């Protein structure tokens, strides 16, 4: 609770309290390991309602997962950010009730059906708005805040100036992805299955999920590999590079960004633990002495050692200009 008050103050005082370090977890073991490595919060859920999770925590175990996170002093957010089709709507109110009763600290949503379902259940839970690449300006962020969102998770395609401007204008918490891959394409179509069938290949026993480690290379871009996988939500193509804002984290801390999200998808637990440890060091160092803070190159070393040589560590879109 104290941490929450501290973070709440951050927006007003301009960043002296610590930002939250948040990562997605796909199992009870990951929840434990990530919190031990320094995560202040973990997010998890299941494919029915959430998208691009590192693993499913089924409904009958989600209470345990929430309690585990809490026992270790971390927050637990339940991810329901899918584009929801009619068939899952009947189960949604009951699911929200379950996670509310188990003490979830927030529900992450993108589809407005979640707001309707919340109203139906009468359950009151903080809501985090995540509409992926469409979460792009502060007026829209404030709109969803007026609908009940307590936090907005910004699009990964914004530059730093845009992020700062949004933070300045928004009446709730702002979350930014600081490390890992991003989703760059999401289709309802089963494009990998289609491709196999086009070749006349049998699909029995063929894995097309994230564990298979499939990737695409574009004709003109031979240095880049784009992970691709299929699941209940369709086909997902991920970025060729991993965002790594560690060096520039102080810029985000200076303006009081409330939550730093690590995207741990398609990475080994060992890698994510190293990432969490490094970001933890940076956050703690800055909080202890913001004016005297300087980035320590050695924090990057453990990440570099484990980084896939075929994937670049980049600043994502933070320092880019886009045209249209």
């Amino acid at each position, binding site marked *: 609770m104290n941490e929450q008050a501290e973070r709440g103050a951050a927006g007003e005082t301009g960043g002296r309290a610590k930002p939250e370090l948040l990562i997605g977890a796909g199992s009870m073991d990951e929840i434990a390991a990530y919190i031990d490595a320094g995560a202040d919060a973990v997010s998890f859920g299941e494919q029915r309602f959430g998208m691009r999770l590192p693993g499913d925590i089924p409904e009958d175990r989600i209470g345990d997962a929430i309690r585990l996170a809490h026992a270790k002093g971390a927050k637990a957010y339940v991810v329901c950010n899918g584009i929801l089709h009619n068939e899952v709507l009947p189960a949604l109110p009951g699911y929200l009730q379950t996670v509310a009763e188990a003490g979830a600290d927030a529900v992450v949503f993108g*589809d*407005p059906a979640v707001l309707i379902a919340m109203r139906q259940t009468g359950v009151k839970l903080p809501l985090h708005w995540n509409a992926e690449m469409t979460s792009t*300006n502060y007026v829209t962020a404030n709109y969803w805040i007026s609908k009940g969102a307590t936090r907005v998770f910004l699009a990964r395609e914004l530059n730093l100036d845009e992020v700062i401007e949004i933070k300045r204008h928004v009446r709730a918490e702002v979350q930014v992805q600081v490390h890992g891959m991003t989703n760059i394409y999401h289709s309802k179509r089963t494009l990998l299955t289609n491709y196999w069938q*086009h070749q006349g290949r049998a699909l029995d026993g063929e894995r097309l999920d994230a564990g298979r480690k499939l990737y695409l290379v574009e004709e003109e871009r031979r240095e880049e590999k784009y992970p691709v996988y299929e699941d209940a939500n369709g086909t997902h193509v991920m970025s060729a590079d991993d965002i790594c804002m560690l060096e520039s984290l102080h810029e985000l801390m200076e303006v009081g960004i409330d939550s730093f999200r690590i995207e741990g998808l398609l990475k080994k637990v060992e890698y994510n633990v190293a990432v969490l440890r490094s970001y933890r060091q940076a956050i703690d160092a800055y909080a202890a002495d913001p004016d005297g803070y300087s980035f320590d190159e050695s924090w990057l070393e453990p990440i570099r050692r484990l980084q896939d040589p075929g994937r670049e560590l980049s600043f994502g879109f933070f320092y880019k200009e886009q045209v249209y």
Partner: protein
Amino acid sequence: MAKTTVTRQQAAVRTVERPLYTKLKPGQKPELLAPGGSLEKLKFAVHYGADAVYIGGQKYGLRSNADNFTFDEMREAVEFANRYGAKVFVAANIYAHNEDIAGIEDYLRNLQDIGIAAIIVADPAIIETCKRAAPKLEIHLSTQQSTVNWQAVQFWKEEGVHRVVLARETTFEEIAEIKRHVDIEIETFIHGAMCSSYSGRCVLSNHFTDRDSNRGGCCQSCRWKYDLFEGGGDEFEPIPGEVEVNAHRTMRLGEGMGGVPLFPGEDPFMMSAKDLCMIEHIPEMIRSGVESFKIEGRMKSIHYVATVVNAYRQAIDAYFADPDGYELKEEWLQEIYKAANRPLNTGFFFGPPGHKDHIFGPGDKRIDYDFAGLVVDYDEASGVTTVEQRNHFKPGQEVEFFGPGGTLFKQKIGELTDEEGHPLDAARHPLQRVRFKVDRPVKPMDMMRKRTGKKA
């Protein structure tokens, strides 16, 4: 065109027979909504039978490469459409960045003053500004919001949205479920190109070319060729040298990239979807209760717009003239093929698209017909038409005329003259006006096409 199994179609139609909300009164036709990529295209769309046309302005719309309308052009468009009793909508469907916010209010007020009937919009920032600053504009929620379920539709209805354009990922069953629960106008696509992703959920262009797909910069990267590899981690050895990746080439990968190509020697992986075409399913579309049928294609040609609008207009009219006796006329389908540059399919309407609904080889098929001339005048006494040249043609050439209301006939061009009566050996110059006898009466704005390729 490949047909889905009869059983699936029958099943889909059966589920539609529950009571549905619809704003259409008995006997009232759904709106046929056509793309107006330019002022000229808008005029053809309206003339060929569209009940409404959607256009883009100079700001806030996707398709930044279309001939987007100035306010003056919008005024002319509204005036023209009014003569036919048709409406004009403006697509203001970007996901705005902070820098786009400032001009929205003025822009929308202008649209309202001009007499635009509705904006097609995805971003709540633009929706809210519209409600506040331009309340006379109807708000149509864009397919960019990827609305697929009835509770989301309910949410937007409560927000004061007048109409929801559903995501293309909705089946007939899902549409029926939506229409069973929510009393609001629904618009669905009926024809044209489709994003293979959920609309709005693709930033391939941003990554490949730094062009923002959700603000008009989409460069259709989903239609490029890709190669599929296995092995994104350190357990795979880096690939040395050249590797055969598909049937067409080998490739040298970037340094440090490990893995094995999955289908060397085969077709590359593609994410390209075939174009939607529902003309063979007009009864199902009409029985769904959907209030507006949308044709995609602001970037497509006048020939496409006129041909496609004409075909759907005739089909819809024929259905309402005699629902029980309705039959698809083969010539409507043939007309569609003459304007199709991609293979066609029924999208998600009957269920998830399979591999046959995607393009894996060279996707674009050459259209075998070119727009060759526009009828500007017809003299009944002499049977002579004055045609404005839009492509080369000459005496002896076989051409085809088509126009609203079912005009469709072929003929060979006889003697060709200029407007003064001087004989010509060919119509060479764009917009040149020429005269020749036609076998049947034609009307201004009827169109003439010629076959291309081997039979040019």
